[in-house]
C-alpha cells in the first residue's frame, strides 16, 4: 500500500465529455492517457512521478474495465522495454519514471526503441527532478532525446496544456514513428488546476487481442544492416515528419505582439516563471497578455528552424530562457541564425545563470538585464533607476540551521546506522558505500556512515574494487528497493562471481519507502495484483551467497552490532550478506494507528509505548542524539541556574520504536531513558495487581520522604 492513497481522486478519472476536472497534474496526466485510448501503462516510481504510479495502481479497476494493462515495472529499463509492444502493434503505450536517473537506467531500451521506431504511439512521461526539492544529481534528460532521436515535449505547466501535450504526444509519435518523451517538472506534477474532460476511450487494439495475432518484422530488429537503415530513416523520414507535425498542429505557441524589437524564446515549462517576471515589470497582465513577444517551445526537441526564424524576423534581440546546462537549445538556435545569416542578437546564458534552477528572482533578474540592454524604454522607471529605502533585515544566515531530509520518527533504519557507528567504534573505520533510498540519510549527521552512492542497486557494486579484501572488509549498504531494482543482478551476482570478501547490508523496510511506500517483491503485504512475499535472503542464497544472516528486528542495536562484528571478522570466504528487516515506521503507523484507536474505543486492551527522559539524570551531553537524530528526540532548556546545557527530551510524537532504550543500552550511554507503556482498558486482574504494587511502593516512598527534605523531586 502506498503512502498516499488516491482511491477518492481516482473516481474523477471516470468523468465524461464536457465535465470539469479539478486536481493535481499527475491525475490530469492519467485522465489524458485514458482519453487517448492508451493500451498499456507502466513505469517505476520516483519523485516527482511517484504519485503517477500510485494513481495508476489505485485505478486498476478502471484500467481493467477499459482493457488497459498496468505493469509496475521492476525498473525504468523494464518500463522502457515494455514500449516494445508499440513497435509492431498499433497500440498506444505510456510509461513513466523520473529523470534524468530513470532515463539513465532506461537508456538501453530507449535507444533500441528509437532505432526500431514505433507503430503505435509510445509516450514516456518523465518527471524531471531538477531544482529545489530534488534528491539527485543535477543534470538534464534533454541530451538523451538528442542522441537517440526521440522527441521531447515540455508543455506549459497548467492542466489544459499538459493534457493537450498527451494528445499530441501520441499523435506525434505515430506521425513520426518515434517515441515521445513528455517532460513534467517537479512542481508541474503537483500543480493543481482544472480542465474540461472528454470520454475515456478503449484502445482500438488491446494487448490481449494483439496476442491472438502476433506480428514481427525483421526490418525492425536492431542488427546490421537494418540498424544503418534505421539511422537513415530517422534523419530522412522520421525527423522531418516530426517537424511537419509540430508546425501543422502549432505545438509551439506565440504570445504577445507580432511586431517588436525584442522577443523571448522560452521552454514551455519555464513559461509561467517568465510571465511572472514580465508581470512584475508591468509588461504582462494577470492573464499573460504580454507586451514582449514570446515564442513558447512546448516541443524542445526537435527545434523547427523555419518557425524560429519566422519569430526572429524583424527583431533586434532575443532572449532564450533555458533551464539547466549545457544550453542545447541556445546552441541550436544560434546555429539556425548563423546559417540564415541573421543579424539578430541572441542572448541566453549571458543574461541568465548557466547552472541552477530558474527561480522567480533569477528570471526577474535575467529578463530585467535583457530588457535593460535590448529595450530599456520598456522598463518602468523604478527598475531603470531603483530607489529603495527598505529597512535592513538582520542577517539570519548564521542563525538558521540547515535542515536536510532525514530518517522519520521511529525509522527502523536508524538503529542499523547506530549499530554501524558502534561497530566502527570497536573495529575502526571501514570503507562503506551506499545505494539510493532512505538509507542514504545515514551519510548525513549524526551518523555520517557511507560516503558514496553510484546509483540505484549499485551500492555493493560500487565496492567492487575492494572485493579482493584487505585488513578490514568493505561494507556496502543497499535498500530493498535498490535490491530488486537492479541490485540482485548488478551488485550481488557481481559479488558472488568475483568472490568478494565484503559485507553487504540489505536494509529491508518492506516497501520502496523513499518513493512513497510502494510494494516490492519482498513486501509482506498481500497485494491483489502483484506477487509479494519473496524473501531477499532466498534470492541471495539462490545465486550462491553462503553467509546470509537475517535480522527480523532492527531495533535490537546490540544484537545487530554483534552480528555486524561477526560478519566483519568471520573466517568464512565469499560475500557476507545481512538482511536487516523491520517495517517502515511511516507505513506501519498509518496502518496501525487507526486500528489501535478503534481498539481503545471498543474497550479492548491496548498497550501504547512511548519513551521519556528523566531530566534530573540527563547531563546534557547529547551522546544519545549522536546515535539517533530522531525528530522526536529533542532538547529542552531547564529552568535551573546550575545547568548550562539543554537536556534531552522526547516529545509526544514518539512512537515507542525502542531505539532510544536499545542505544542507551548497547552504547552504555546513561540511565536517563525510560519507556512508559500506557495500558488502555487493562484487565481487572491487572488492575488489582497494579493497585497492590502501588500501595506497597507508595508506602515505601512516603516512608523515605518523611525522613528527608523534599525539594520537589530534584536531587
Amino acid at each position, binding site marked *: 500500500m502506498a503512502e498516499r492513497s488516491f482511491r477518492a481522486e481516482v473516481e474523477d478519472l471516470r468523468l465524461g465529455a464536457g465535465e470539469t476536472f479539478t486536481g493535481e497534474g499527475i491525475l490530469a496526466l492519467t485522465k489524458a492517457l485514458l482519453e487517448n485510448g492508451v493500451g498499456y501503462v507502466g513505469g517505476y516510481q520516483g519523485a516527482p512521478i511517484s504519485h503517477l504510479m500510485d494513481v495508476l495502481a489505485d485505478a486498476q479497476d478502471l484500467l481493467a474495465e477499459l482493457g488497459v494493462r498496468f505493469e509496475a515495472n521492476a525498473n525504468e529499463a523494464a518500463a522502457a522495454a515494455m514500449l516494445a509492444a508499440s513497435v509492431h502493434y498499433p497500440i498506444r503505450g505510456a510509461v513513466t519514471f523520473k529523470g534524468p536517473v530513470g532515463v539513465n537506467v532506461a537508456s538501453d531500451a530507449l535507444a533500441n526503441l528509437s532505432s526500431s521506431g514505433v507503430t503505435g504511439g509510445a509516450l514516456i512521461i518523465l518527471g524531471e527532478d531538477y531544482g529545489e526539492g530534488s534528491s539527485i544529481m543535477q543534470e538534464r534528460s534533454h541530451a538523451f532525446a538528442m542522441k537517440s532521436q526521440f522527441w521531447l515535449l515540455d508543455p506549459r505547466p497548467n492542466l489544459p496544456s499538459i493534457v493537450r501535450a498527451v494528445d499530441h504526444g501520441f499523435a506525434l509519435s505515430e506521425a513520426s514513428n518515434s517515441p515521445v518523451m513528455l517532460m513534467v517538472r517537479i512542481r508541474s506534477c503537483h500543480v493543481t488546476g482544472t480542465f474540461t474532460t472528454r470520454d475515456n476511450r478503449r484502445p482500438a487494439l488491446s494487448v490481449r487481442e494483439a496476442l491472438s495475432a502476433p506480428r514481427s518484422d525483421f526490418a525492425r530488429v536492431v542488427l546490421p544492416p537494418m540498424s544503418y537503415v534505421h539511422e537513415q530513416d530517422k534523419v530522412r523520414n522520421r525527423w522531418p515528419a516530426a517537424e511537419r507535425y509540430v508546425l501543422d498542429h502549432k505545438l509551439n505557441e506565440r504570445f504577445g505582439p507580432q511586431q517588436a524589437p525584442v522577443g523571448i524564446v522560452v521552454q514551455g515549462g519555464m513559461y509561467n516563471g517568465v510571465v511572472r517576471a514580465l508581470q512584475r515589470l508591468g509588461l504582462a497582465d494577470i492573464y499573460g497578455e504580454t507586451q514582449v513577444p514570446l515564442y513558447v517551445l512546448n516541443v524542445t526537441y526537435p527545434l523547427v528552424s523555419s518557425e524560429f526564424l519566422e519569430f526572429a524576423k524583424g527583431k533586434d534581440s532575443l532572449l532564450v530562457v533555458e533551464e539547466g546546462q549545457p544550453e542545447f537549445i541556445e546552441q541550436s538556435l544560434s546555429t539556425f541564425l548563423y546559417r540564415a545569416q541573421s543579424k539578430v542578437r541572441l542572448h541566453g546564458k549571458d543574461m541568465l545563470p548557466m547552472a541552477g534552477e530558474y527561480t522567480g528572482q533569477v528570471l526577474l533578474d535575467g529578463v530585467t538585464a535583457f530588457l535593460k540592454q535590448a529595450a530599456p524604454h520598456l522598463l518602468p522607471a523604478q527598475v531603470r533607476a531603483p530607489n529603495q529605502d527598505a529597512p535592513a533585515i538582520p542577517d539570519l544566515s548564521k542563525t*538558521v540551521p540547515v535542515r536536510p531530509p532525514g530518517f*522519520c520518527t521511529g525509522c527502523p533504519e536508524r538503529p542499523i546506522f547506530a549499530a554501524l557507528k558502534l561497530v566502527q567504534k570497536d573495529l575502526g573505520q571501514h570503507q562503506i558505500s551506499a545505494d539510493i533510498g532512505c538509507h542514504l540519510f545515514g551519510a548525513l549527521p549524526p551518523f555520517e556512515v557511507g560516503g558514496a552512492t553510484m546509483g540505484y542497486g549499485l551500492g555493493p557494486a560500487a565496492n567492487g574494487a575492494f572485493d579482493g579484501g584487505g585488513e578490514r572488509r568493505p561494507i556496502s549498504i543497499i535498500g530493498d528497493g535498490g535490491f530488486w531494482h537492479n541490485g540482485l543482478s548488478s551488485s550481488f551476482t557481481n559479488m558472488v562471481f568475483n568472490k568478494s570478501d565484503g559485507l553487504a547490508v540489505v536494509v529491508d523496510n518492506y516497501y520502496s519507502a523513499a518513493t512513497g511506500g510502494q510494494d516490492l517483491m519482498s513486501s509482506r503485504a498481500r497485494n491483489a495484483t502483484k506477487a509479494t512475499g519473496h524473501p531477499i535472503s532466498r534470492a541471495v542464497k539462490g545465486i550462491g551467497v553462503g553467509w546470509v544472516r537475517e535480522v527480523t528486528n532492527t531495533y535490537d542495536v546490540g544484537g545487530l552490532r554483534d552480528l555486524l562484528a561477526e560478519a566483519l571478522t568471520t573466517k568464512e570466504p565469499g560475500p557476507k550478506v545481512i538482511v536487516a528487516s523491520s517495517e517502515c515506521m511511516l507505513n506501519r503507523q498509518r496502518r496501525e494507528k487507526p486500528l489501535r484507536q478503534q481498539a481503545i474505543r471498543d474497550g479492548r486492551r491496548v498497550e501504547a509505548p512511548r519513551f*521519556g527522559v528523566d531530566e534530573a539524570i540527563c547531563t546534557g551531553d547529547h551522546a544519545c542524539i549522536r546515535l539517533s537524530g530522531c525528530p522526536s528526540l529533542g532538547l529542552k532548556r531547564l529552568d535551573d*541556574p546550575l545547568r548550562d546545557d539543554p537536556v534531552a527530551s522526547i516529545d509526544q510524537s514518539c512512537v515507542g520504536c525502542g531505539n532510544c532504550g536499545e542505544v542507551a543500552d548497547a552504547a552504555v550511554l546513561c540511565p536517563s531513558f525510560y519507556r*512508559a507503556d500506557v495500558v488502555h482498558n487493562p484487565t481487572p486482574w491487572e488492575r488489582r495487581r497494579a493497585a497492590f504494587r502501588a500501595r506497597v*511502593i507508595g508506602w515505601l516512598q512516603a516512608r523515605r520522604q518523611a525522613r528527608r527534605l523534599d525539594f520537589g523531586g530534584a536531587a
Partner: protein
Amino acid sequence: MTAHPALSPRVPDPALGGIIKLAVMAVGGQGGGVLASWIEDVARACGFACQATSVAGVAQRTGATIYYIEMCPGTGRPPVFSLLPAAGDVDILIAAEMMEAGRAILRGFVTPDRTVLITSTHRVLAVSEKSVPGDGIASTDEALAAAGIAARHLIAADFDRIAIDAGSVISASLFGALAGAGVLPFPRAAFEGAIRASGKGVEGSLRAFAAAFAAAQAGPAPPDAPAAATAPTVAPQPTGPEPLIAGWRALTARIAAFPAPVQDMAHAGLSKVVAFQDLAYGAEYLDRLASLLPQDRADKGHALTREAAKYIANAMAYDDVIRVADLKTQGARFRRITSEMGATDANLVRVTEFMHPRAQEIAGMLPARLGARVEASPKWMARLDRWFGKGRRLRSDTLPAFLMLHALGALRGYRRRTLRHSQERAHLDRWLATALDCLATDYDLAVEVIRCRRLIKGYSDTHARGQSKFDRVLAGIALVAGREDAADWARRLREAALKDEEGKALDGALATIRSFL
C-alpha cells in the same frame, strides 16, 4: 505585533489584479500538505481561481519543505500563476516552525512592504543543533526579532502547543491563525467548511482552529512571559520533618551573609547538594564557598564565588548509581510520568528503565580502599563485568525492580565511604586548587578554570571523554597562563571542547595555541 507605519502596503499592481501569493514553510511531517489543500479548498469554494504546488517525495522526510499557493478572484478566464515563490513577492507567509520562519526571511520571502508573517514560535530542532555536546540551539529571539523587522505584520504564537492542547495537529491551528489574521477575503465559516469537507479528525481540527483564530486576533502575548524567565529564580523551600527544616534554615542563614551576587546561585547549589546527600554535606558545600570568599573581589562582582557556587554544587552532586536509583524511585517521578504520558485513572502505566552498569560503577560503590584495590586488578574488573556488566531492563513499577532500586537509593548514608566519593572529592580538590593557583595573578583565568567543570558530564564513555577534554583544556590553560589574554583563551578552549564529540575543534584550538607559543 509589528507594523511599519512608514512603509504603507504597496499598492497592488493593477495589471496583476490582486493575485494573493501565499507560501507555507514547514518541516516534513508537519502536515503542510493538508494545510495547503484546505487553503486551496476555501479559495475555490469562495469563487477564487487558485493554484497550489508542492514538492513530494524523499525531500519531505523531516527536511524543510515549502508549499506555494496563488489565488485571485475568478473571472472565468484562466490567470497565469507562478509555480514557486519569489523573493520580495509573497503576501502571506505561514511558517510551521520558528527557524522555518527564519529560513523564509533569509530567502527574502518576508518583506516589510507586503508580507504578513504567521509563524509558530515553537522549535523542531535540526540535527546540527541537537548533536553538539554543548548548547547548539539556534536563537529563537534572534529569529523573532528579525521577523518583527522583516514582516509588514507579524502573528507569532506557539501554534503547536495550541494544536496539541486541542487534541489536534499544527496544520489546523495555523489554518485558524490564517483565518484569524483576516488577510484572506473569506469568512470564517468558509474556512471551517473546508475542514469539515475534509472529513478527518474534524472536531479536534475545529477546536485547534478556534483557539488559534482567537490567538491571532488577540495579538501578541504580553511581554512579561520572557521577562519572568530571565528574572532571578528563587530556589524553592523544601518540605520535610521539623528538625531537618530547622537545620536547613540554619544553612540558608549562612547564605544570607554572602555577597548579594552569590546568594541565588548558592541557594540553588545548596538545594542540590542537600537533596543529593544531607544537611552535613550542605554545610560542607557552604564551607567551601566561604573559604573562597576572602580571596574573591567585590569589583569583579564576586564572579569567582558565584561560578564556584554553581560548579562545586554540580561536582559534589555527581551522578552515581545511588543518585540514579534514588531519583528513579521517588513518588514525584511516577506522578510526573503518568501526567506526561497523558494517562488517566482508566489506564495503567508500566515503566521500564534501561540500566547498563559496568565494572567501574560496581567498584565505585565499594568502600574506598577495597574499591581501589579491585579497580587496580584487571582480573577482578573482568569478573565484575561478567557478573554485572550487561544491559538490564527494570520494570520499576513492579516490586522486585522497585525494591532493588529503592535499596540502592538507601545507600545514601554510606555513600561518603565509597571509592567513587573519594575519587570525586580528589578531583574536586585538584580542580579548585588549580583555579586558586591562578587567582593571585589572573582573577579572570581562575573564574574560567572554575567554569571548565561544565565539560564533565554524562556516564561511562561519554563521562570519560568529558574528563579527557577537561584535562586537555586545563593543560592548554597551563600553556597560556601568564599571558594577558589567558582568560580569553581558556574560554575559547572550553567552547571548542563543547562543539563536537571527538574534540576536533579543541585539538584545533590547542594547535593554534602551540603555534604562537
